[in-house]
């Protein structure tokens, strides 16, 4: 098998809650190849952000820990890296776009200075060169009149413009992997369309890999090559986008897709998944979805299903246990 850009194997992360370590995500194994876009979808609290933050070691050190697992980036194991080693990777090789641009940008620094700072960390350039680079990258992300924006503060920009700055900041070092955590969730649809357009151009014009984290199935369908569906800290299903949407195998994926209202067609009645997501404290021992699953069997309650390979998809569900090829 060819080497993946990023591969995560058997990752588990826990958090310290009232002096007890509570597992937030576990059994996470996936990979991202060069030039592809992997979508991570799931509802709030399913662990999609925790997974991405743990790759960059951005989780709080005192209250969280990586229990086990390996994170291999470009052939190097980075899960045990210290801060100094990580800072060489952060921004330069793996960059991140956060959801809320208002809290992620420094309110007392101009856009230009913040972008130049992102350059300064990894490269020695003259002020002139940096200025030029910043203007170019702002143009690339479709910022109107970048010269003028250079000296403006975040509060002077609209939400869409701020998100462009975030993207520019992430791209300024031309990273190999871009982790976008809900990049358009806080934006209006027309602005979201603009930002998605920029990200599509980026995919077309470079061989950057993107990990797109979102809860919006529409955005995933449009942007990604492969999809990983998460629920309550576990992977439920993984496969290429077309398979996941046209032939969802896991009961959770099926339920999720059936519960989305559509703008392109009339739906008489949505099928909803009954019940609510269990809390981290009361997580079932077996399959995490067993409390809400209509196919739940005895085995589901007691034993967690591994990922079974069905066709080209990976599914964590005992219903597919007759498929012999286990992967984990």
């Amino acid at each position, binding site marked *: 098998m060819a080497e993946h850009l990023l591969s995560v194997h058997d990752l588990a992360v826990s958090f310290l809650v009232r002096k007890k370590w509570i597992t937030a995500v576990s059994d996470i194994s996936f990979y991202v190849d060069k030039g592809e876009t992997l979508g991570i979808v799931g509802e709030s609290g399913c662990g999609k952000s925790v997974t991405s933050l743990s790759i960059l070691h951005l989780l709080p050190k005192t209250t969280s820990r990586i229990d086990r697992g390996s994170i291999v980036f470009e052939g190097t194991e980075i899960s045990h890296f210290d801060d100094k080693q990580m800072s060489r990777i952060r921004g330069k090789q793996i960059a991140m776009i956060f959801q809320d641009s208002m809290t992620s940008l420094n309110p007392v620094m101009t856009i230009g200075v913040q972008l130049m700072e992102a350059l300064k960390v990894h490269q020695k350039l003259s002020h002139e060169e940096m200025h030029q680079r910043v203007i170019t990258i702002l143009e690339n992300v479709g910022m109107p009149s970048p010269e003028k924006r250079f000296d403006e503060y975040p509060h002077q920009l*609209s939400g869409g413009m701020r998100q462009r700055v975030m993207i520019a900041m992430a791209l300024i070092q031309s990273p190999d992997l871009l982790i976008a955590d809900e990049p358009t969730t806080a934006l209006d649809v027309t602005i979201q369309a603009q930002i998605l*357009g920029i990200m599509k151009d980026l995919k077309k014009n470079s061989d950057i890999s993107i990990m797109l984290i979102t809860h919006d199935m529409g955005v995933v*369908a*449009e942007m990604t090559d492969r999809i990983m569906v998460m629920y309550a800290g576990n992977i439920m299903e993984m496969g290429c986008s077309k398979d996941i949407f046209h032939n969802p195998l896991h009961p959770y994926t099926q339920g*999720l897709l059936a519960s989305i209202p559509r703008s392109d067609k009339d739906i008489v009645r949505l*099928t909803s998944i009954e019940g609510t997501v269990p809390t981290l404290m009361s997580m079932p021992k077996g399959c995490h979805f067993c409390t809400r699953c209509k196919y739940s069997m005895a085995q589901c309650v007691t034993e967690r299903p591994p990922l079974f390979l069905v066709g080209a998809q990976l599914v964590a569900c005992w219903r597919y246990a007759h498929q012999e090829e286990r992967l984990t």
Partner: protein
Amino acid sequence: MIEIQRPILQVENLQKYFLAKKKLFSKGPAYVKAVDDVSFSIRQGETFGIVGESGCGKSTLCRAILRLTEPTGGKVLFEGKDIATASTEEMRGLRQKMQMIFQDPYASLNPRMTVRELIKAPLDVFSHESEEGKMEKVIKIMGLVGLNEESINKYPHEFSGGQRQRIVIARALILNPEFVCCDEPVSALDVSVRAQVLNLMLDLQKQLGLTYLFISHDLSVIRYVCNRIAVMYLGRIVEIASKDELYANPLHPYTKCLLSSIPVPDPDHKSERIILEGDVPSPYNPPSGCHFHTRCNSVLSCCSVEYPLLREVAPGHFVACHLCRQGELA
């Protein structure tokens, strides 16, 4: 559904202006026209949707209709009676018939009150029933919205978002209102829970004969629940049409763009996306004429001068666009 033609609520030229900060050397006070000259009517038993991007005035419109904020001008006729000029006493009577469901179930429930107190609060204000009578109603409505009777003494923080929104709905419905204003009732909820709440709202509408004013920025949700839809842009309504008509044959350039912007959850879906340039202009200083002309891709010379009136281009289909008048789009 028999009386679907009878309007329960008529909004006529409703305006809500907010006083903006006065600038040095400016003549007279400046206003932000959050809701500007909005007219529509809602029929008994239907769900009327208002859709638009953030800042377009949909929430202000909702609040002005319920007179939670005083309208600057215009009329709101609820069952023929003008709410905008009603006295405090009259309002008290009317409020029982009009209720509201808020967006954020985390912010709209008092964390110090139990479910029992929260749901019973409207009864304490309006009803002279005995305590037993009230409790009976609370239990009944809890069953109706799918809340477990055992959770009656719990506090809001013990519930998930979806459960909390059920409490909010129960509280809104306990007075047996005829008309419910729903301001983004499911935006704060996760996909799987959102479907539960939407289905619940539709079921309750059928059972109790409710009329909804449903405000959302999500055109997919709007399509699922609404019968008729109004599209707002910068304080004005640009298009009103029945659901089928609006999605099949949108006429206003803004509506077209809005519809094409939504990502469809189907990887094979191919559509021509109209990408709007720029941002929504500031409501402090909206463009002259048609507010949308700065971003519109088919501007005429008259667009920047004259505001197009909302006119009926097909039965029940109203559009405020100069293009439609000239018959170029219709």
